[in-house]
């Protein structure tokens, strides 16, 4: 079968690019890694070594997002996600503090539910997944087809049935897998979606200025492309719930994640709920809005397959909103918990400090 000349030319160009880019990419990834390896050999005191490693790891991560991901994102999927997975492996080997924080989080929260070997595997997968998610975001460029052809959507009929009822639909999820690309992907299919979500600002003390800038330029712009309007920022703003209600009144889709740690300003409104063998402090706003507006809530998760490039986006039938808002919220959270226990590496909050903010780990004492 002969290919269309334009398609044949594109294929040739892609394969040539891949051949030329391969060694350049390997160099780009290997340079910081080699520096890290050198630092390790240098027998610096542990505290200094961790500081140096932290700086190098951030540098390497920045380099990955700014230079490597844009270069590899549109290569054939096995190659793009293969390189991303490789970067995840490197981070597992070299970013000691990140690795230790995640393993500590897994051990503290799930305890005997995981063996040490499973904890190691999940930590490695966690870092691989986070590298792949950066590629997902870039594949949303244009009409998002580069990502869409790798994702199988299950349960779209539930979303369409909810919208047919005329009161909008709430897609409720967690910081799980490529959660942000998931909402944008739904938007790219022509379904009008607005997400509720905090974007990193100066209040996020664990993000440097450069990291925030990289996020805005290289990830946020691609994610925002397919959404109906900019994210509704729930950072203590008075109008955010009314903005969400406006979206639902227009019979559109609202995407909300229910598991983020609450900000200090929201603490008085947060409620302790059973979650992952402990009590997490969370905001049950999603079910309050759903009950007030009579809108169905559908649980949504995007899981990565074993080949690392294909994903399944699953939309559940509506969750029962009977009883009070808190009881309905507990139902949603139970679905989130089940998803996390089934695929722990997909959840973003295994880091020690995130778990402390959620209330699942006791806060560390500040040094006197």
């Amino acid at each position, binding site marked *: 079968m002969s290919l269309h000349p334009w398609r044949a030319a594109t294929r040739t160009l892609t394969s040539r690019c891949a051949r030329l880019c391969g060694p350049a990419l390997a160099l780009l990834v290997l340079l910081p890694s080699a520096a890290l390896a050198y630092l390790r050999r240098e027998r610096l005191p542990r505290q200094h070594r961790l500081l140096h490693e932290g700086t190098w790891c951030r540098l390497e991560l920045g380099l990955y997002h700014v230079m490597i991901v844009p270069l590899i994102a549109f290569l054939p999927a096995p190659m793009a996600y293969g390189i991303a997975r490789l970067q995840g492996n490197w981070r597992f080997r070299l970013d000691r503090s990140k690795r230790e924080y995640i393993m500590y989080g897994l051990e503290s929260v799930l305890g005997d539910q995981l063996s040490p070997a499973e904890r190691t595997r999940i930590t490695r997968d966690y870092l691989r997944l986070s590298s792949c998610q950066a590629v997902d975001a870039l594949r949303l460029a244009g009409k998002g087809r580069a990502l869409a052809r790798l994702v199988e959507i299950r349960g779209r009929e539930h979303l369409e049935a909810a919208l047919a009822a005329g009161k909008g639909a709430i897609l409720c999820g967690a910081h799980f897998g490529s959660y942000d690309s998931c909402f944008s992907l739904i938007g790219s299919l022509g379904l009008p979606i607005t997400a509720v979500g905090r974007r990193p600002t100066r209040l996020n003390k664990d993000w440097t200025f450069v990291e925030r800038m990289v996020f805005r330029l290289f990830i946020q712009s691609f994610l925002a492309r397919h959404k109906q309007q900019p994210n509704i920022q729930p950072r203590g703003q*008075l*109008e955010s*719930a*009314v903005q*969400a*209600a406006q979206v639902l009144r227009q019979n559109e889709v609202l995407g909300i994640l229910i598991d983020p740690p609450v900000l200090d300003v929201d603490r008085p*409104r947060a409620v302790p709920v059973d979650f992952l063998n402990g009590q997490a402090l969370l905001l049950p*706003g999603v079910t*309050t809005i759903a009950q*007030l507006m009579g809108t169905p809530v559908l649980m949504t998760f995007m899981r990565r397959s074993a080949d690392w490039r294909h994903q399944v986006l699953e939309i559940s039938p509506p969750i029962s909103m009977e009883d009070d808002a808190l009881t309905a919220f507990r139902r949603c959270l139970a679905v989130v918990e089940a998803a996390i226990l089934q695929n722990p590496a997909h959840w973003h909050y295994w880091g020690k400090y995130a778990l402390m903010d959620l209330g699942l780990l006791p806060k560390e004492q500040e040094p006197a």
Partner: protein
Amino acid sequence: METIVNEYISRELVSQPDLLPLQNDTPLLEHGILDSLSLLKLVLFLEERFSVEVAPKDLVPEHFGTIEAICKYLRAQHQVQEVQG
């Protein structure tokens, strides 16, 4: 109008009994009576009860800081709607 709004807020939105009875000039935001979700409840009530439409851009402390301010805003909205109607 003040009585209806005061009764609704006192019954549905005030969680601390020591704030009752609510005065029409009690600062609703400073006392934590109104937050994002309780404001949504209030807006849905006002829209249904007084047949007005509250735009998200109008949700500022100037219009929702006290019961007096809410009623002033509602009256202004009624006038606007009458002029437009």
